[in-house]
């Protein structure tokens, strides 16, 4: 699309205004992290703190066992990526490349599950976890929604683009199905898998509900659960701690985004080509 220079300036101007609006709450977040409680509640509000207290980040982090929670969150993300990623990729592959009775129906069910609001299944899920003795365990938190319609849908769309002939050739060579998956399909699908991983991590890193409900001891908490405890309404929110830790918690995701943004776009492109 050819655009004249003046159009370009207008477009960029609008987008910059948009970016400023996007940034204001984020700037507020970081600036609140650096303030004293007194300055936060004072009027008129200041966007830039008078005396930024850079040690608030460390201080906020120390108020709770956040390092333990960080480790827990890592484990949940990795667990969800390994279990969910693998099975969703496999399932998506089968839906894309195999024809069998009930495949339509099963795929529609998988897609339909994407629309289930979490509130609907919280109590039954909790009861199930309790009956399976999975409460307060790593699996108990990873398993709900570990395989979900979104990932299956994404992977299926990608695998539809993989040409059939290489698979056929491998079959003719006597390769077993599972070996085909590991040796041929997976290497080709690196961008799509990366996309899937990023989506899973984005969801799990910030997920509050399942870790909140499924844990019964402080040492199994994840970062979002820990952050939520800054909001005990009884004594009001400790704003600088809350914002300080929230800022810290966002940084890994931003780094992940920056590193993988090339893969991300490539991954989504490939799922659309068919």
């Amino acid at each position: 699309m050819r655009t004249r220079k003046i159009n370009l300036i207008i477009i960029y101007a609008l987008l910059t205004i948009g970016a400023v609006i996007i940034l204001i709450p984020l700037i507020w977040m970081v600036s609140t992290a650096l303030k004293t409680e007194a300055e936060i509640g004072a009027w008129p509000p200041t966007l830039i703190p008078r005396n930024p207290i850079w040690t608030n980040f460390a201080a906020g982090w120390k108020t709770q066992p956040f390092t333990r929670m960080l480790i827990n969150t890592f484990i949940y993300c990795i667990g969800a990526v390994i279990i969910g990623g693998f099975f969703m990729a496999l399932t998506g592959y089968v839906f894309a490349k195999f024809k069998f009775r009930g495949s339509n129906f099963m795929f529609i069910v998988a897609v339909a599950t994407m629309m289930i609001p979490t509130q609907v299944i919280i109590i039954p899920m909790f009861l199930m976890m309790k009956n399976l003795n999975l409460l307060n365990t790593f699996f108990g938190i990873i398993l709900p929604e570990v395989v979900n319609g979104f990932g299956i849908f994404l992977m299926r769309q990608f695998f539809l683009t993989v040409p059939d002939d290489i698979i056929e050739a491998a079959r003719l060579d006597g390769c077993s199905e599972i070996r085909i998956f590991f040796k041929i399909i997976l290497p080709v699908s690196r961008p799509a898998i990366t996309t899937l991983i990023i989506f899973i991590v984005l969801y799990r890193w910030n997920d509050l509900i399942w870790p909140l409900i499924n844990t019964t001891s402080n040492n199994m908490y994840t970062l979002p659960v820990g952050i939520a405890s800054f909001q005990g309404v009884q004594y009001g929110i400790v704003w600088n701690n809350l914002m300080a830790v929230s800022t810290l918690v966002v940084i890994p995701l931003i780094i992940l985004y920056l590193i993988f943004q090339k893969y991300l776009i490539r991954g989504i492109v490939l799922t659309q080509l068919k």
Partner: protein
Amino acid sequence: MNFVIAKKPANWKTKNAYIMISPGMLLLFVFLVVPCIYALYISFTEFKSGAFVFVGLNNFKILLKNKIFWVSLLNTFYYTIGVIIPSIVISLFIAMGLNRKGGYAATLRTIYFLPVAISEAIAAVIWQSVLNPDVGIANYILQLLHFPKIGWYADFNWAMPTLIMVSLWKNVGYYMIIFLAGLQTIPQEYYEAASIDGANWWQSFRNITIPLLRPSLFFVYITSIIFSFRIFTWIYVMTQGGPGYSTMVTVYYIYREGFQRSHFGLASAISTILLLILLVLIIFQMRQFRLFKTEEEFR
């Protein structure tokens, strides 16, 4: 894009298919479908004095007469339509605008993505402060610019638009990336050919961009519907369904009746109805998109 099943050669082993698909589908079934069935079962009971007691269709009868329930369905509709259309339109235009090389475009793209990286809960708490009608910086800035104060989430008329606004803030970056990817699959030659033929911007947009973006559009559409349920966190933090019932959506009503008032049976009944509505909508959507399949190719 073929939404339903692509054609496959007929001589592939189906037994393998079943085996390979079973762990994934099993996990899906056990941890997503079974709880729903369980929820369906609970809708015919109610939680009284510590035990689930069978009450038949009583919950559904209560819901029929319950004004708040019907209001919540309307509000859900209001919110979903109100958020999906701007979501798609705004993020598409941002993607088109930022689909360029250069450091500035890349910086802007990253900025638009930042809200996606923040958890809903934190984003809601931040916006709750920023939009506080009396001491928040949004109204402070408006005051400085000599505009009147806005009630935001504490105003009967502004509450729902406020929720739509903050949802857009949170998710536009996500959709933008999906559209960026989609835009990059469209060969530049099409646009060049079109402009040689004398097509203006709108014609190019309508006849090249939109049809070739159909897969992305569908993806964003589905994703935005899913994300529209995440409204729960915003409501929980900022409005609690109020003021009045202006932001009482069904998903929040389920939480309120179930968790705050221990009416688990009633909450499950609401969930069942909601799921049925969603199911009908999904089937309807799929029919719609199947129809468009044949218009796919343009040239």
